[in-house]
């Protein structure tokens, strides 16, 4: 940049040996997977890794740039996935040709009306009501109206489930859902951030964990909207599907789309990081008090960072769900997958976008490969155990092998936090003389 301060020393521009070595190792690993697992499988893995890289970029903004810990990544992913599903799935004619859309619309109007009424009640003090009376009226009104509206909603949704299964999609191209998914995740992130960002950092973690659970509970139990545990599939792709191009080629085309998205996000983030906005954001992270003393609006910047990260998570989640071609609310495991993304970010280097992408691909490969590996290991142990001690193997070995992976991820995070908190590719900080 030309506007560099005269007294700042650029990080000694060195040959990026570390980066090259790490990415070369990653390439070797990918080629190894290709050699062992075959083209179609490996390409699928890469697409998923790319989607996770988008999520990881979202989290690296929040954690690396802003020092905010979002424990509910999966909630935002699920929101994105939900939008991808609802926008791209074909229109359900049974639903739209019945009188149900009208009824649902009426109920939604009631919801809006109830909201307006309660909001009006909270303003009664302007008409001269005493405050306690206003509060009392508002609360009683809210409770009664809530009960009325919710029982109407229950009726209509039960009707929808009985007659039409679920409301169906909008039949639009998948990318519309991705955009709206990002926006929706951003809106939810705005509300959470607005409440929690001014408080202790722990509260954000608790609240995001909570919102993720609630989003999941909602998506899982709203059969009329998402078919719940029955899942929705297949979801159309924004690119030609496997039936047109064959598995490998179709996945490769999808991969190119996600790669373009990553490149665009990467470029924009790189620009923002070195722009005044990025400097300010890092200043706030590193020393909040002096940043505030310089007149920076800390909470506003924090909110921007948080919402931006949530938007990326929504988009990444939408891309991931579309690719998997199935919307299964139970598949979003709040803690486990959130942690997978967090490990990607911390291992790669929080605040370093390149490191984050490296971390995302590397960790995802480890994660995917650890399943057959863990199973193989357990079978080996069981075989040895049976052979030499004659003990009986416990059942459901597969599900137990899965638990071993959860343990490993937890161990990995604590170890990385302790020994390499800055990751393999640490954020570059320019120093001043």
């Amino acid at each position, binding site marked *: 940049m030309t506007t560099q301060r005269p007294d700042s020393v650029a990080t000694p521009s060195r040959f990026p040996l570390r980066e090259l070595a790490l990415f070369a190792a990653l390439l070797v690993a990918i080629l190894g997977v290709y050699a062992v697992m075959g083209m179609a499988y490996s390409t699928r893995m890469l697409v998923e890794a790319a989607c996770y890289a988008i999520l990881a970029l979202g989290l690296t903004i929040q954690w690396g740039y802003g*020092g905010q*810990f979002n*424990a509910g990544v999966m909630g935002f992913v699920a929101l994105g996935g939900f939008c991808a599903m609802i926008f791209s799935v074909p229109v359900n004619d049974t639903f739209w040709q019945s009188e149900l859309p009208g009824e649902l619309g009426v109920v939604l109007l009631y919801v809006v009306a109830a909201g307006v009424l309660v909001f009006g009640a909270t303003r009664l003090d302007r008409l001269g009501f005493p405050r306690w009376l206003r509060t009392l009226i508002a609360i009683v009104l809210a409770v009664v109206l*809530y*009960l009325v509206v*919710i*029982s109407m909603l*229950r009726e209509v949704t039960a009707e929808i489930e009985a007659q039409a299964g679920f409301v169906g999609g909008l039949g639009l191209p998948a990318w519309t859902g991705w955009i709206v998914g990002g926006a929706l995740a951003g809106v939810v992130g705005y509300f959470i951030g607005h*409440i*929690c960002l001014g*408080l*202790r*950092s*722990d*509260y954000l*973690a*608790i*609240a995001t*964990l*909570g*919102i993720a*659970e*609630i989003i999941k*509970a*909602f998506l*899982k*139990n709203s059969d009329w909207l998402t078919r719940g545990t029955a899942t929705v599939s297949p979801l159309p792709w924004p690119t030609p599907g496997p039936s047109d191009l064959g598995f490998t080629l179709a996945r490769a085309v999808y991969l190119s789309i996600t790669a373009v998205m990553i490149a665009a996000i990467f470029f924009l983030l790189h620009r923002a990081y070195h722009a005044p906005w990025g400097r300010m954001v890092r200043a706030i992270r590193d020393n909040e008090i002096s940043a505030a003393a310089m007149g920076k609006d800390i909470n506003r910047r924090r909110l921007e960072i948080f919402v931006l990260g949530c938007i990326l998570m929504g988009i990444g989640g939408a891309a991931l769900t579309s690719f998997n071609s199935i919307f299964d609310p139970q598949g979003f495991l709040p*803690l*486990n997958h959130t*942690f997978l993304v*967090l490990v990607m970010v*911390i291992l790669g280097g929080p605040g370093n976008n390149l490191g984050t992408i490296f971390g995302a691909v590397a960790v995802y490969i480890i994660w995917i490969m650890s399943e057959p590996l863990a199973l193989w290991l357990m079978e080996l142990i069981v075989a040895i155990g049976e052979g030499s001690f004659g003990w009986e193997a*416990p*059942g*459901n070995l597969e*599900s*137990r092998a899965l*638990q*071993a*992976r*959860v*343990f*490993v*991820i*937890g*161990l*990995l*995070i*604590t170890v990385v*936090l*302790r020994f390499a*908190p800055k990751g393999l590719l640490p954020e570059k900080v320019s120093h001043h003389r």
Partner: protein
Amino acid sequence: MNELVFFINNVVIAGSVTGSIYAIGAIGVTLIFSIMRFAHFAHADMMTFGAFMALLLTAIFPGAGALVGLPTAIVMLPLAMLLTSALAVGIDRAFYKPLRAHGVKPIVMVIGSLGVTLMLQGLIRLFSGTGGQSLYIDERKEIFRLALPFENVRAPIVVTEPQVILFVLTVVCVLGLHVFLSRSRLGKAMRAMSDNPDLARASGINTNTIVAVTWVIAGGLAAIAGTLLSLDVTFKPDLSFFLLLPIFAAAIVGGVGHPYGAIAGGFVVGFAETLAVFNWSILLRPFGDSLPEWLVQANLAFVGTEYKIVVPFFILVAILIWRPTGIFKGKVI
């Protein structure tokens, strides 16, 4: 009157049960917070671990309960508490202490504790499998039915044995904690360290000892809550999933770092949950003749049981908006 009994069974008793469990859990969270200044996310999994230890011990010594006339799991509870306390201290030594020594921000400790959560979850499921198991292995759960001395009241008030034990233990825990914190030398030192860690050090208080004592207490309480919850329903490895948000909500409602507040917060959250899923139209039934039929038939529950988790979250958000220090002023926002 039958409706009133129904209300007592489904709200008063059920609310007290969940409230007690949340309260005991939230005390641990709040104590850890006030001494180490971070939200300990692995706490709910410590509760699960305690319950799992009780389950294992019950399976090993199935006859122990019959000797004293209590459920075996209760007889084994002190041992389970000891094991959980040991685990808590061990986890602190292995994972939290090095982070503390580095002087990391509290949020990094939070992430570390989430890592511990995953490890505990993985371990527990690895050994217990993923299904639910009853803590009553060779025994039968005793159920007390108290008939009310009124005419035309057919339904009795129902309390189970583990619920009675839970109430007794909750009272014992609360009183014990109070005496410990206000009378004993270590308890006062704990409060002193929560007030002003630097001055505590300058007074010659060995802060490592206090940290260890905190983990022992928190671990023991976690084992009590986990075991009694598992006795009341069943042991499930994903118990923590249903506990984490409520106990944090309880601790924050009560004012973080405020043990008595955590007790109050636990009951607030517990009762709020049961009240929210209670179908209020049942209470309208006695007046069914004078009310329109649709009202009496309607489902007047605020949320379905599947959305129970919304309740602690809603309480959490409300308290963060209006009074982030909690109903009793907590220390740190």
